């Protein structure tokens, strides 16, 4: 902002009049107008509308009455929602840490001057190109106890091997975690590898002179250096966690029972299938609050504070 204000007069200072400035800037304003309208109507308007609806008793059609926090107390007494919230916490923690750990290991191992580096990179990242629906369908087939992994291992001579997580109420959510990590680990690897490549080569020489083992350097020196990349990867993965919907729909449809329900699916089902708009929007509002409280500080630090031309 400030840098732009320095720049503008230097362009038109000799004959700058207010009129001139308005005329030259008018096209820029007009060009931004559609986006500004979308921001106002969709990003702000729809958001407020959703929040407002969560305080009503709307069922099939939206009403504009006021029932206070009634929907929220219903929501927190709703088994399905509580299971969803618990599931998203389990998924979020395991998925993010799983992707970070696996991604970090992959990046470190790829960074060891290996042959076929680009081939490995290509293989590790390809799942990220596929949709969650494809991922879900593929893993559903792979993990189905009847013909999938369980049968494969049993036929290999381990008749007692059991891996029925997909149809097991207590374990099904972990199959979603596995599929999620499969999908997202490559992305983490790519981001962290870019960070590793930026580490100063002298650091390694110094570590060698001091006789510090390589793994120790990675843990104690390189890992802290990678902090910005880890934060970026975490934020990217976290936004994926909140949006978790397609993968569940394709893989388990929320089942068995309600074992793999997630908030995004809860909202979608209540808005478009169960005709309970108020409860659906209340759940959406809770999602919004959760996301904003986690991400607002990060977004502030990363973008708003550093606005304008940095060169």
């Amino acid at each position, binding site marked *: 902002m400030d840098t*732009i204000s320095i*720049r*503008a007069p230097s362009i*038109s200072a000799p004959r700058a009049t207010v009129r001139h400035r308005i005329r030259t800037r008018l*096209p*820029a*304003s007009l060009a*931004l107008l559609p*986006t500004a309208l*979308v921001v106002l109507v969709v*990003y702000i*308007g*729809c958001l407020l*509308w*959703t929040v407002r*609806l969560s305080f009503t008793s709307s069922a099939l059609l*939206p009403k504009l009455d006021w029932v206070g926090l009634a929907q929220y107390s219903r929501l927190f007494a709703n088994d399905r929602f509580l299971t969803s919230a618990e599931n998203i916490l389990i998924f979020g923690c395991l998925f993010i840490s799983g992707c970070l750990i*696996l991604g970090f290991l992959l990046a470190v191992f790829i960074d*060891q*001057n*290996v042959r076929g580096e680009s081939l490995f990179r290509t293989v590790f990242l*390809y*799942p990220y*190109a*596929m*949709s969650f*629906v494809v*991922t879900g369908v*593929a893993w*559903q*087939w792979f993990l189905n106890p009847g*013909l999938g*992994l369980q*049968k*494969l291992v049993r*036929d290999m001579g381990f008749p007692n091997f059991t891996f029925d997580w997909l149809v097991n109420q207590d374990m099904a959510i972990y199959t979603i975690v596995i599929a999620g990590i*499969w999908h997202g680990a490559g992305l983490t690897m*790519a*981001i962290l590898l870019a960070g590793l490549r930026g580490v100063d080569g002298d650091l*390694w020489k110094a570590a*060698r002179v001091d006789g510090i083992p390589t793994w120790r350097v990675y843990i104690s020196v390189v890992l802290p250096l990678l902090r910005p990349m880890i934060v970026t990867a975490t934020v990217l993965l976290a936004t994926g966690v909140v*949006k978790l919907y*397609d993968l569940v*729909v*394709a893989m388990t449809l929320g089942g068995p029972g309600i074992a793999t329900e997630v908030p995004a699916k809860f*909202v*979608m089902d209540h*808005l478009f299938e169960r005709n309970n*708009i108020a409860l659906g*929007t209340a759940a*959406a509002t809770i*999602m*919004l609050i959760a*996301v904003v409280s986690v991400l607002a500080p990060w*977004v502030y630090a990363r*973008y*708003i504070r*550093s*606005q304008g*031309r940095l060169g």
Partner: protein
Amino acid sequence: MNTIEPQGCRPRRLTVGRVGVYAFLLTAALFILLPLWIMIMTSLKPMDEIRLGNIVALPTALTFEAWSKAWSSACTGLECNGISVGFWNSVRILIPSVALSIIVGAINGYALSFWRVKGANVMFGVLLLGAFIPYQVFLYPLVRIFSMTGIYNSLLCIILVHVIFGLPTMTLLFRNYYLGLPIELFKAARIDGGGFWSIFFRVILPMSTPMLVVATILQVTGIWNDFIFGLTFAGRQNLPMTVQLNNIVHSTQGERAYNVDMAATMLAALVPLVVYFVSGRWFVRGIAAGAVKG
């Protein structure tokens, strides 16, 4: 590019450590390739062979029947026209959505980085925040707005939705790229009497090729892989491939034809996979550009 350590030191530690490195990488590669392998193998087998088990084995009776069935006659509920319907719907959604969202993103990025418009930075801030907010927060009111204007459940509707929700990333991408261009360029064009549009089309846009490529990769994979918007806004006639795939997989009655399911899955994954393998490093740049550059 920095090497890990001086070249001369490596042979000494070659044995155990190096073998470990390769063992880890190969194991990881196998784990990551396994689902794709299983999908392809399953799609090439007849059902009799699938029922015997051993999902990783090569087909003994290789057949492409499942692929042609998946493409042209797999059933979603009552209709049995295969996933090709979804493919063409996705193409029809994809092309205008990608083109429009990139154009809008480029214009926004240009206006934000070279011009001083009142309130533009506030708008940009809100837009960025919007990128992190779960779609569920916007969906219902958006459906109402589209129904009121009478375009709900149409091709236009789903295209608009993709453009709207592509705005944050596209704007950010181009804004950051343009901020990296030398300002002198813009100043010179201004002194030569260039206006907003003429500078954009004659000076800025011709320099945007790298970002146009990155943005195209990002949007093509993103929009092709979209599920939730297609499901909510496209309407029965325009359901994209992902939604159709899900319908095919979950609507079979009786025994599921796993080979057809897997062939359909492969077909749905084909476009982004081709984009991925062809674009190579650009793909990574695309993901990174939206996120890493602040």
